[in-house]
């Protein structure tokens, strides 16, 4: 069809040239030239527009079954989408020959997402071996993809907001060293949960093996434990050498010794409109990735629930935020062990599906699971009635069925065991059945139907860009589903210590807030900083500890029912006593600088941190206030002040209350070390 269209255009152009040559007078020549120009313009426009693909077409990622040089992988996405991977449009009738490459000209590409109106496709792509992964947009009618992002550490996992903004996670996790394991092609279960890539003894590794690397990368990424720094890491991620002297690696429970997985900084979510600057959306201690946009307009993503106790396993679970990063809310899978959760997608049948895998399993050993929107915290279970293992992706097909990409071993014509194909399954399916689309030379993954879906709701931001603080209102600090540290669940909190998360996994005290008799407290806190809380009894002993998890955006008013209260609860209708008093201002010197995609600290010498309103009845409860200008930290002293920080370990029960006045400086130092991306 395309060839025919081209030849007809060529014929038309040739005829016009002939007509132009035969024109006898200048007037004739002008008129013929004008006609020719018009037709040529039309032809050129037509070449750009083409025909929109028919309904029922698929957009999917194809990764080569045989990876030539696995050692070349330097980032998690290089593992997930090895060189040669591509995003294609598969047209019905489906077959290996009836595909159109959407990622033309790119070294590798993957993770396509189709807009709700089925007119746009965005995906992660890599132009060449030395460049970073970025988000690209392709026209379904053809043409070369257009780069959308230019993130310094790379960008991945796009999603589309109804406004046209692309949400993505950045930077792309970087793999440094590679260690050989005992894994071989016949034994994909390596037994070791660490990041393992065959060091080249095999001519090629299976996609399953390389995906295990990605799996471990994300596992480590989501937990955020630091390891030694390395100059190469900074270079590899595009950060300036020395800018970030620490990096993150997998957690202790993932046995990461010997693996050097560099995580220069946590992966965060960003949103970017075409031509605009990226705006950072997440500010938690843990990384955030795998975003998708729900019909109600929220962004659903995967992150880790910070551990309340050091020996706890970190949960990989699902969270939501609004499209401006406000209202971080736990969505599902909290406190359900240390398994991995990936690639959540709304299924439009009242469920959200996702991939789940044990923390010690390979990424291609994922199970398809789902939660019901009606009871997301109490309804997790298999997506299908049969045990679907080795699942790579699940998407709603738009007609009530699902597109599942899974291993298609055993089918006729397969050249190799273990490659993936696309299946269409009904909700009550009992088996995978025959593939809908299968190209044995490729792993066909991440298939999405090219069908219109409900347009997600928009959301008008309640942020106030001119503010540097947000507000936290807790309706009842004594309301918690956590046990009290001392075992006395009836102990009443007198004060609440507000913590700010640091990049080294520790936290620092911003100050303390008095708790009113109804359990409520109100505090103004620095925006875009991970915040944790500790309730303290009258003797200053810690009753409950909520590690730095949430954040507030500038000008956001955030309200919680309790400190780690049960999920999906509405508040009791009462007016909290705390709103009758002015909010306690804490950590005033933690501030955002207005950089579009992150926070950077700047010491504000006007007031000391952890100050408290003098009108409050317990002024001492909120930390010591700088009594004279000499006591106030000076501008530029942020790094030096860090040495006097009081760091708060996660939860020594019975710890007496500590008060810090200079915690801001450390975060300021940390923040100023962060290099804002373009």
């Amino acid at each position, binding site marked *: 069809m395309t060839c025919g269209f081209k030849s007809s255009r060529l014929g038309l152009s040739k005829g016009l040239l002939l007509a132009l040559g035969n024109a006898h007078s200048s007037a004739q020549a002008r008129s013929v030239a004008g006609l020719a120009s018009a037709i040529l313009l039309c032809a050129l426009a037509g070449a750009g527009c083409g025909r929109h693909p028919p309904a029922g077409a698929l957009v999917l990622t194809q990764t080569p079954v045989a990876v030539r040089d696995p050692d070349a992988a330097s980032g998690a996405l290089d593992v997930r989408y090895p060189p040669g991977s591509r995003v294609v449009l598969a047209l019905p009738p489906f077959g290996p020959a009836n595909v159109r490459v959407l990622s033309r000209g790119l070294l590798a590409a993957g993770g396509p997402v189709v807009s709700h109106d089925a007119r746009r496709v965005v995906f992660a792509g890599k132009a060449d071996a030395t460049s970073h992964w970025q988000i690209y947009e392709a026209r379904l009618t053809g043409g070369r993809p257009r780069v959308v992002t230019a993130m310094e550490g790379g960008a991945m996992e796009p999603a589309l907001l*109804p406004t046209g903004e692309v949400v993505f996670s950045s930077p792309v996790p970087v793999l440094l060293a590679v260690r050989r394991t005992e894994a071989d092609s016949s034994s994909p279960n390596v037994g070791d949960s660490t990041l393992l890539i065959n060091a080249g003894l095999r001519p090629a590794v299976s996609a399953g093996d390389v995906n295990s690397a990605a799996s471990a990368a994300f596992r480590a990424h989501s937990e955020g434990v630091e390891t030694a720094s390395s100059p190469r890491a900074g270079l590899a991620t595009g950060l300036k050498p020395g800018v970030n002297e620490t990096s993150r690696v997998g957690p202790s429970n993932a046995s990461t010794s010997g693996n050097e997985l560099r995580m220069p900084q946590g992966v965060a979510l960003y949103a970017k409109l075409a031509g605009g600057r990226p705006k950072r959306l997440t500010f938690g201690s843990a990384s955030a990735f795998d975003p998708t946009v729900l019909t*109600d*307009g929220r962004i659903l993503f995967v992150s880790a629930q910070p551990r309340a106790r050091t020996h706890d396993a970190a949960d990989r679970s699902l969270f939501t935020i609004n499209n401006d990063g406000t*209202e971080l*809310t736990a969505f599902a899978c909290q406190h359900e062990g240390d398994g991995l959760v990936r690639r959540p997608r709304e299924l439009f049948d*009242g469920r959200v599906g996702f991939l789940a895998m044990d923390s010690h399993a390979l990424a291609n050993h994922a199970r398809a699971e789902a939660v*019901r*929107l*009606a*009871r*997301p*915290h*109490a309804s997790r279970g298999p997506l299908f009635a049969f045990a679907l293992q080795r699942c790579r992706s699940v998407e709603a097909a738009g007609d009530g069925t699902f597109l599942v990409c899974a291993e298609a071993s055993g089918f006729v014509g397969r050249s190799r065991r273990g490659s993936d194909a696309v299946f269409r399954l009904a909700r009550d399916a009992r088996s995978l059945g025959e593939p809908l689309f299968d190209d044995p030379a490729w792993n066909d993954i991440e298939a999405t139907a090219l069908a219109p879906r409900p347009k997600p*709701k*928009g*959301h*008008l*931001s*309640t942020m106030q860009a001119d503010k540097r603080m947000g*507000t936290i*209102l807790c*309706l009842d600090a004594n309301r918690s589903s956590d046990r009290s540290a001392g075992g006395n669940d009836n102990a009443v909190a007198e004060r609440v210590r507000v913590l700010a998360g640091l990049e080294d996994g520790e936290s620092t005290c911003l100050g303390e807030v008095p708790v009113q008799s109804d359990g409520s407290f*109100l505090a103004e806190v620095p925006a875009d900083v991970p915040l944790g809380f500790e309730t303290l009894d009258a003797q200053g002993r810690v009753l409950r500890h909520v590690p730095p998890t949430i954040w507030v955006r500038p000008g956001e*008013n*955030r*309200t919680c029912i309790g400190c780690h209260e*049960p*999920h*999906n*609860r*509405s*508040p*009791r*209708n*009462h*007016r*909290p006593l705390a*709103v*009758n008093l002015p*909010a306690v201002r804490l950590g005033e010197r933690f501030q955002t600088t207005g950089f579009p995609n992150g926070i950077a600290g700047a010491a504000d010498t006007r007031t000391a941190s952890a100050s408290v309103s003098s009108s409050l009845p317990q002024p001492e409860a909120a930390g010591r206030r700088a009594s004279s200008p000499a006591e106030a930290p000076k501008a530029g002293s942020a790094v030096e002040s860090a040495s006097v920080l009081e760091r708060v370990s996660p939860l020594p029960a019975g710890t007496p209350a500590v008060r810090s006045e200079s915690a801001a400086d450390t975060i300021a130092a940390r923040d100023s070390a962060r290099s804002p991306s373009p």
Partner: protein
Amino acid sequence: MKPRGFSLTACVGVLALGALGFGAHTWTVAHVQRWTGRQDLGFVGCNHCHLVRLERMPWAQERPRHAAPAGLAVSPDGQRVFIALDELDQVVEADTASNRVLRKVTIGGGPFGLTLDSTGEQLFVACRHADRIAVLDTRELKESANLEVGLAPVAVAFCETKVGPRLLVANSGSDDISVLSVAPLREIARPAAGREPFAVATTADGARAFVANRLATVTRQTDLPAAELTVLDPASGRIVSRQRLDSAHLSEGVGTVPTREWTLTPLVKVRNLVPITQVANGWVMSSGLAISDAGGSVLQIPLDEANDYFADPSGIAVDRSGRRAYVASSGGDAVSVIDLEKLARWIEHADEATRHEAIDDLALAPQYVAGRIPTGRNPRHLTLSPDGRTLFVAERLEDAVLVIDTTTLRPAGKIVLGDGALDDPRRRGERVFTRASNTFQRQFSCRSCHPDGHVDGLSYDFDGDGLGDNLLDNRTLLAVANTGPFKWNGKNPSLDVQCGPRFARVLMRTEPFPPHDLRDLVTFIQSLPPPRTRKQGTPLTPAQERGRQIFFATRTPDGNEIPRRNQCHTCHRPPLYTTRLPAAVGSRGPRDTTDQFDTPHLLGIATSAPYLHDGRAATLEELWTVFNTNDVHGVSSYMDKKQLNDLVEFLKTL
């Protein structure tokens, strides 16, 4: 004319015009300051005080009327369903086998609520606008009798008692219940109900009647609101008890469960005392169901789910076997099916604390909600066939009655009454007004806070201007056309602005209305007339007349002149009883950021309690007895109790 002459003429003309304009401006400002007695006012347009005529108001214009179904009643044999069409002043009879309209009869006065006697021979019709009950002979479909009842009757129920048949009528305008004997048709009692009684149900044996009241009883500012479920003895008309539904309102239906001695009342669980920092997780309100048992204890359970809401629960129908209840979500366009046996099991196993907090647990509903049946726009009234196999749903803004097969929980047909009238912008606007899909997760609609465009009688704390600051009483939308600016601080110059992006940001938490929807919505709001507070054509009583003289007084009874700025009619100038200018009336509270508040119109003021910008005054009397001790809000210190009562009586007629 030479150029020089032209220039000279032009300059002189411009100067003359400038001087004229300056003079006019100066005169206008002086005029305004003189007649308002306020020196803080500058230029004010003439139409604040002049050129206002009620007959030109959008709400006074003739409007298209549509076949919007209200009350439903099914004949005992299940073969016919009667449908009230209040806008058309008609009652229609439809065949349930063919779903076709058989006969129509004109019943003047806005027939709204329907009920049949036990034989099905008499149909009783509550006529909302005529304050009467009409009796229809169902064989001839002809009006045979009628009786005057309280103000704005909207629901009627029939029951057999030991002393004979009784009718119970919910008078939504006069906040009382008319208890009628049927033969002869006469009123035997009119006990007071809660605020805006809206639905009536009786037990099968006629021993008890239950009246659901739509609004919470008037409370002040930060008091916990509560709606009332009024329980009475139909035989005597005496009130047995008044059950309190905490933090509940918008109850438009009530049903009894014969096998369990339960009374089910759909409600909106409102959380107006919590600052509105979000709407997720039912932060502002959620839908629920109150279960009252024979002992008078009340349990509230949610109808909403964690990420899916069914806003504005309205009508309810309970099958005679007591196994299922059906609740219409008029904002969510769905009917929720409640498995009462599962619900009973859950209640049996739940401990006291769990039951107490059940309404706030959004993960609970799947335990007893057996299904959700999508409907057309704005399902309100429900009724079941006697065998319980067919559910009829009045799709009010669809001009149709949906017929649902309750064995499959699927639509089985539709009784078409009209075309939906989508060519009428007012009707389109009403659809927008009642549609919950505009808000985040379909949590509520405009109607959730403004039932029928009026007030919910609650105060809210919006977070945009600080947590705990600037509590705001909900203002009525009735008769607001041409009364801009809007909001208590008068910051919104028009309804388009009021309902535009600000509303989306603060309340809907989604995107603003599309322009065409906003246009229709404003058209609808402007078409809302003031509420009717007394029977039509009734002259003022002597007390009301004395109150009128006080309202327009320029001198106190002892001859002292009342400063012009303190005369009632200076700010509350007829015919809208507002000059639409901000004024300081000494009502600034400790958490308010201004003392200047928009002057509200007084049309229907009797029905829009509480009063003042933050709802601190529960009654009109309190405006002067509690909150105007320094004669800033008018001069009232000279009034004795009788004079104050007279003034209030007059205000209640507006």
